[in-house]
């Protein structure tokens, strides 16, 4: 078991393994998203209250879920890197942060586009989930800014790992306090006791989009971590040999 983890965490092995894994995530991801987009736009019926405006959830919900998921991935891998000194884990955290920030941004933009016809305004401070997404975006910015401010990679890894862990403890608290602060958003419809409160024709495309986004996220993350590994190991022999042999 430990031997397996050690082999997996060795940069050259990961580098080649990740290259072989990317297609396995890209192909199902694209298929699922293609189905989700088509079914979401053409097959799913219009909502009896929200009309066609509801269709933006097919982008909004996967982005919002991934924005939080990515923070957890980032914090957990940063903690692994800090505790067991696995360099690959730090590379994962570094690669995940910009992706998480993008998903958060996407969730904010789609949420605000949805809010325009629903609430009559682009931004509604009374909505707790939109507000905590905004704070999450600031957390990502802080993390990336700290990374950018420290030149030494090892030091940047460790310092940002501490920040990510402190942030991970705070994210639920922030979420809870913003919820206490005010509530106006429509309640959660997907996760509810006794199954989702949603028509099946609307639900399946949404699940496909969530799964498809996750697959594509995994593929992007692998690609980013590969690049990160290559950059960090740029002075090692295996990278030199790789470049000289013309491989990718």
């Amino acid at each position, binding site marked *: 078991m430990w031997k397996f983890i050690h082999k997996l965490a060795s940069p050259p092995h990961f580098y080649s393994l990740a290259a072989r894994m990317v297609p396995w995530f890209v192909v199902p991801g694209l298929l699922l998203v293609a189905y989700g987009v088509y079914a979401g736009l053409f097959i799913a019926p219009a909502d009896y209250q929200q009309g066609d405006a509801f269709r933006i959830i097919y982008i909004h919900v996967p982005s919002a879920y991934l924005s939080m998921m990515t923070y957890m991935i980032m914090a957990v891998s940063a903690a692994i890197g800090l505790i067991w000194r696995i360099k690959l884990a730090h590379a994962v955290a570094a690669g995940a942060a910009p992706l998480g920030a993008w998903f958060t941004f996407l969730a904010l933009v789609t949420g605000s586009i949805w809010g325009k016809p629903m609430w009559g305004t682009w931004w509604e401070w009374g909505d707790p989930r939109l507000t905590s997404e905004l*704070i999450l975006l*600031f*957390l990502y*910015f*802080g993390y990336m*800014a*700290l990374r950018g*401010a*420290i030149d030494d990679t*090892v*030091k940047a890894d*460790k*310092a940002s790992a*501490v*920040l990510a*862990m*402190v*942030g991970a*403890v*705070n994210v639920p*608290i*922030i979420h*809870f*306090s*913003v919820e*206490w*602060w005010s509530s106006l958003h429509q309640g959660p419809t997907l996760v509810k006791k006794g199954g989702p409160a949603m028509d099946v024709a609307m639900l399946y495309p949404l699940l496909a989009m969530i799964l498809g986004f996750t697959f594509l996220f995994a593929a992007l993350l692998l690609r980013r971590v590969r690049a990160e590994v290559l950059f960090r190991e740029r002075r090692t022999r295996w990278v030199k040999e790789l470049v000289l042999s013309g491989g990718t």
Partner: protein
Amino acid sequence: MTDYDENPGLFTAMLGVARRDLLLAWKRPGDILNPLFFFAMVATLFPLAVGPSPEQLEFSGPAVLWVAALLAMLLSLNSLFLSDFEDGSLDQMLVSPLPLTALALGKSIAHWLTSGLPLVLVSPVVAITFRMPLSVTGFLMITLLLGTISLSLLGSIGAALTVGLHRGTALLSLLILPLAMPVLIFGARTVSLVAAGDGVAGGLYFLGAYAVLVLSLAPFATAAALRISNE
């Protein structure tokens, strides 16, 4: 020769650091006063920007005072480890056999006594200008008391992470402000609720619980961050 025989114990070490920082602050009162002036000035900016209407000032008073206090705390956090870093005493703390966590907690205690507590004491004067009733002012002071403890400790993590970095000031705000938002929300909203005549127990419990949580966890994170940024 060996330090271990003369190990003064955790509390003595913590209080020693706190006493030293308090003495340093006493010798340089500007470090205590500047954030207070800053606090008063930010609080002055709002009425100038919003207009002198009494109802509006009364309504926005708790929010303005809390935002001003948050910014003043942030200002004072910049120099938390700076002079120690520059004159080498931080290195001495890092190599000393005493647990760095205790020393970090000592620094936070001194920081709160020289920045948080003065803010709490000065806040009623500023609150009067916002026509805050006396009963509400009492609650403002309680929330500030609990909130500044959290901000001091939370901020020490950010200060430890950014010590010795160029452009650390703007970075510190970016790191700490998102984490400080629960404190701001509960602090300012609780005072607003008192002013509106609503129940406040929930907000005070939260601020107290958060202060205890940060008090028990932040010194460890600060110590880890200090070690990392001084490698």
